[in-house]
């Protein structure tokens, strides 16, 4: 087939299956004619009256809620003016992070507000201020204004957090605050002079203590809650998930009640068509071919790291490490896979050899058995081994790169950001990109790590957590660089580089404009750096005695380390710090609590760390996330794990043998997830739904629109934060 027509068909299918978003009401109600309806419309569920009813119900609820909130705002505004004349009394106390240590860490620069409400429920601000370096607040107020008869019995003390960032007409960023903690006390307690609320310990952006991975504590015992999804994000999620949720529910019910009436094909048909199915319709067999395989490994969800073969510079390898001794089940195959490529004249990597290490059937479970496959082994085997490689690649991409490399990696920067940046302009720079990642990660723990992955892949929850800890030990801002493009078709790497250039300009410009503020609040940077280092995981293998391992394991560990170093731009030679005898993976940004403009090394470190965190939270995450439906939206083409079955041929059989394919439950779950994750994206840079994207960033990105278009990437698809 002519390559131009292949390209045309692929482009056409990409266009057809592209997920687009509108802001208008429910997207699947036929009357609303939104774009997604056309696709989801393939599903029979979508025109189901129940779906439409539920969607209408949600719209009614949303309108009611918005109306109620606006009434509340109008009738009971929180007047910003401080009442009273003399300041003859003061409210004091200290705010600290709730923790087990004898001396708690103070929460510095936290906003605190002291309110009265009148008997007619009007808000009267008595005082406001911030905690100091010791976490102490001292709010002078007018005693008589606080105890006056017109006020209600109890006065309100609130601890506020920066909830979101917004930009004014002059492109200057500001904070929106929301109440994090509230407590009341009777006005009759006030007797003049000081009133001491004493130590208020808050579970504010605290680290979880049940895991070595830096995770946000999201369980609270006194009604406090940190950060929630923006209302827009919640609405988008609910509206978009109703039809796919109903689809899945129908499948699960049928599987339970009437399994004869449901099959892989019927499940697949209920979900919207994806890229590979679309291409298969036009070009049967193309998506199972070598060219498509290499193209997707390079520019699809996998965005693989092509390592040059030291012995043959024309050969490139991608390595996926499977079980690696992590806790696992025995239902699915997850061998180590090395794929060898040559580039064709279009710059597309063409696989010519695939090496596997590990079990491929249920009979021989030797985890060190090695096999090698080439096209010469016959079409059936070659197709099957490519399918196997795809499935191992999916696990590695989803777990190592997507979940660990972006979600967990970003979360550690998010916690340190929200714990520490209050007065520093860095809150304006980082918060929009750091918000919601902790929330989605908490969701991922339940739904994916403890839910889907143990059921649909070889790894179980315990193994996944250990793997996550190991992999996180390869991510550091210090030596990271975007991937080098190795051929004219390497569009992923090209896009990553253009985007990183944008991020660099964005951060550099921001620093130029805000350097004074950043330096004058450098103490916040110091604590940010301390939190990052103290809570980061140990460097991969730094806590393992390699000499004590059996040879096979030791070799595998070293091979992983070498490949990961290449893949994640990790430099083990940079000076890292130890805490509790652990070599911490995240490099310190600064050792100083205050600096001057001459301390360029510290400032440059900070810039690089910011660029890194923003890059991971935006482009790096979006790429994998948005391509999930392209590459995981057809179960027989690609899945999270092929079952061993009970034959000696194991996983090396054609797609038509459904005994190795995921079972029906896993099938609908995989498609549900792929839809859910790719389809409910929200918070795009250019669309700026929540108004928190820095206009400098948008302008810089817009200036590269044509460059991105040239390589088939739409900047409108890139999210400003990791939230799905």
């Amino acid at each position, binding site marked *: 087939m002519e390559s131009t027509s292949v390209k045309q068909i692929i482009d056409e299918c990409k266009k057809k299956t592209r997920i687009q978003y509108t802001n208008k009401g429910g997207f699947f109600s036929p009357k609303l004619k939104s774009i997604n309806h056309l696709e989801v419309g393939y599903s029979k569920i979508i025109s189901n009256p129940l779906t439409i009813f539920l969607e209408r119900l949600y719209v009614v609820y949303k309108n009611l809620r918005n109306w109620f909130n606006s009434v509340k705002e109008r009738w009971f505004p929180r007047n910003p003016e401080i009442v009273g004349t003399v300041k003859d009394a003061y409210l004091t106390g200290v705010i600290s992070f709730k923790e087990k240590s004898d001396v708690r860490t103070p929460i510095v620069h936290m906003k605190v507000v002291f309110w009265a409400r009148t008997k007619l429920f009007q808000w009267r601000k008595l005082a406001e201020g911030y905690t100091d370096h010791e976490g102490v607040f001292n709010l002078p107020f007018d005693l*008589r204004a606080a105890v006056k008869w017109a006020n209600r019995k109890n006065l309100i003390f609130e601890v506020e957090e920066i909830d979101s960032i917004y930009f004014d007409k002059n492109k200057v960023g500001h904070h929106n605050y929301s109440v994090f903690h509230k407590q009341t006390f009777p006005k009759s307690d006030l*007797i*003049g*002079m000081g009133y001491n609320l004493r130590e208020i310990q808050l579970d504010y952006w605290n680290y979880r203590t049940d895991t070595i991975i830096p995770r946000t504590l999201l369980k609270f015992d006194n009604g406090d809650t940190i950060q929630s999804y923006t209302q827009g994000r919640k609405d988008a999620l609910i509206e978009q998930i109703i039809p796919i949720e109903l689809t899945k529910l129908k499948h699960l019910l049928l599987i339970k009640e009437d399994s004869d009436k449901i099959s892989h094909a019927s499940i697949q048909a209920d979900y919207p068509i994806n890229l590979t199915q679309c291409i298969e319709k036009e070009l049967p067999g193309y998506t199972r071919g070598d060219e498509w395989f290499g193209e997707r490994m390079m520019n699809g969800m996998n965005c693989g790291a092509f390592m040059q073969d030291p012995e043959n510079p024309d050969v490139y390898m991608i390595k996926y490490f499977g079980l690696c001794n992590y806790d696992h089940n025995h239902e699915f195959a997850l061998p180590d896979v090395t794929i060898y490529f040559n580039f064709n004249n279009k710059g597309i990597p063409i696989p010519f050899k695939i090496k596997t290490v590990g079990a491929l059937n249920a009979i021989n479970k030797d985890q060190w058995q090695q096999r090698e496959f080439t096209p010469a082994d016959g079409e059936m085997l070659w197709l099957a081994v490519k399918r196997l490689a795809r499935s191992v690649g999916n696990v590695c991409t989803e777990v190592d790169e997507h979940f660990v490399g972006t979600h967990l990696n970003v979360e550690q920067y998010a916690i340190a950001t929200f714990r520490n940046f209050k007065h520093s302009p860095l809150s304006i720079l980082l918060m929009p990109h750091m918000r919601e990642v902790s929330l989605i990660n908490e969701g991922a723990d339940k739904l994916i790590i403890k839910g889907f992955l143990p059921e649909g892949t070889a790894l179980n929850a315990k193994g996944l957590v250990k793997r996550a800890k190991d992999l996180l030990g390869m991510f550091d801002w210090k030596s990271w660089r975007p991937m080098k493009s190795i051929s004219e078709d390497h569009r992923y790497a090209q896009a990553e580089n253009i985007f990183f250039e944008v991020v660099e300009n964005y951060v550099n410009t921001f620093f130029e404009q805000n350097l004074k503020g950043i330096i004058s609040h450098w103490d916040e940077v110091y604590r940010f750096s301390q939190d990052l280092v103290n809570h980061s995981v140990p460097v991969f293998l730094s806590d393992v005695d390699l000499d004590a391992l059996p040879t096979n394991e030791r070799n595998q560990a070293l091979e992983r380390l070498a490949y990961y170093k290449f893949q994640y731009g990790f430099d083990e030679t940079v000076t890292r710090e130890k805490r509790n005898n652990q070599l911490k993976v995240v490099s310190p940004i600064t050792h100083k609590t205050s600096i001057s403009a001459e301390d360029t090394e510290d400032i440059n470190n900070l810039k690089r760390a910011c660029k890194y965190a923003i890059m991971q939270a935006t482009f790096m995450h979006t790429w994998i996330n948005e391509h999930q439906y392209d590459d995981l939206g057809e179960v027989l083409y690609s899945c999270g794990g092929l079952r061993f079955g009970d034959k000696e041929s194991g996983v090396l059989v054609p797609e038509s043998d459904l005994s190795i394919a995921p079972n029906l439950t896993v099938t609908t779950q995989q498609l549900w997830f792929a839809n859910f994750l790719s389809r409910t994206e929200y918070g795009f840079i250019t669309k700026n739904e929540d108004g928190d994207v820095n206009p400098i960033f948008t302008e810089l990105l817009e200036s590269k629109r044509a460059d991105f278009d040239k390589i088939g990437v739409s900047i409108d698809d890139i999210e400003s934060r990791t939230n799905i």
Partner: protein
Amino acid sequence: MSEFYPAHKNKLVAIFDKIILWHTAKFFGFLIAAFLSFPKRNRMSHDNGIAGLGNLKIVDNPEFPEHDFFKAGRTFPIRVRHATATYLDDAVNGIRSISLKFSQHHFKSPFDIEMNTGATTLFWSAKSFLMFAKTRKEKYAVCYVDYIKKYPQGATGAIGAMRRNPSSFTNLKYYGKTPFLFKGTDGIQRYAKYRVVPEKEQLETGLQLNPCDYELPNQRVAPHEKNGRNYLKYEWEDRVKKGHAKYKLQIQLVTASHDEDPEIFNNMFPWDERIYPWMDVADFEITETLDWKESTISTFSVNNMPESLGIIPAKSIYDYNSLNYMRAHSEIARKARLLSLKIFGMVPPIPNNDNRNNEEWGK
């Protein structure tokens, strides 16, 4: 702007403030009389004390503006009473006091002044004093736990005012804390604070050198304490006999002004000694101690003052001057106690026994 603590801007509220203050003071005085002074024959706090008689002489060359009452060289027979607040045990960590009366009568006098150790105390207005009283929960010599926790000045006051095991009543400094009026012969309105210090400068004993936040409410007799329940009173008796109980009465003055910051009346802020130096008013000496009965009926009142040295008017229960206003209105309690002592007889003296850390008298 008022010369005194300003009344509320809203006239209606100001009137209301005054009514509340009057009622509060009267009601409080009545409560003390009805539930403490009359039935129990107790003072509000300073039951554990010893009185003595002596002489006082106004200094020959006063540095303070001329005043008809404090005329240079004038002498007065005096009655003085030292006490330990709250507990019937000299060895507790407690506030110590001196009350001075410009007469040797147990009640009548042209000038009384009551002072406690420490330049500041634990309350500063009628409102705060009522809270102090309300939150009091005495148990085995631990008392103001909630108050000290909630009110930072309660804590600083406790540190500043309490003395643990002072070696003598005579080496402590006693402060009147609340300001009074002072109108001299020049007719200029001034405010005055008084204190009593040892005749000769000496090291004050019993100070809390390393106060601990959560231990502040703990006034208990320290473990392995050797000092007995009456050790300070005994020491004072011996000292008076030897002629070593000599003191100075001093005064600090601030000229009244219409744009005065009301905080000038706040007894929690000592006036800066560099700007408002302490000046000697009089020297006095105790020549004989009185027995338990005479000590017990010795009674002092802020109402025993010439008009030109009287209390500063108060506007509300939040006004810092409301403390003295309340004292002035608690005359009923003093009288009720004396009446009760007459009717029911004398309270027993404090036994020198091992009944420690107990609010009760003990047998």
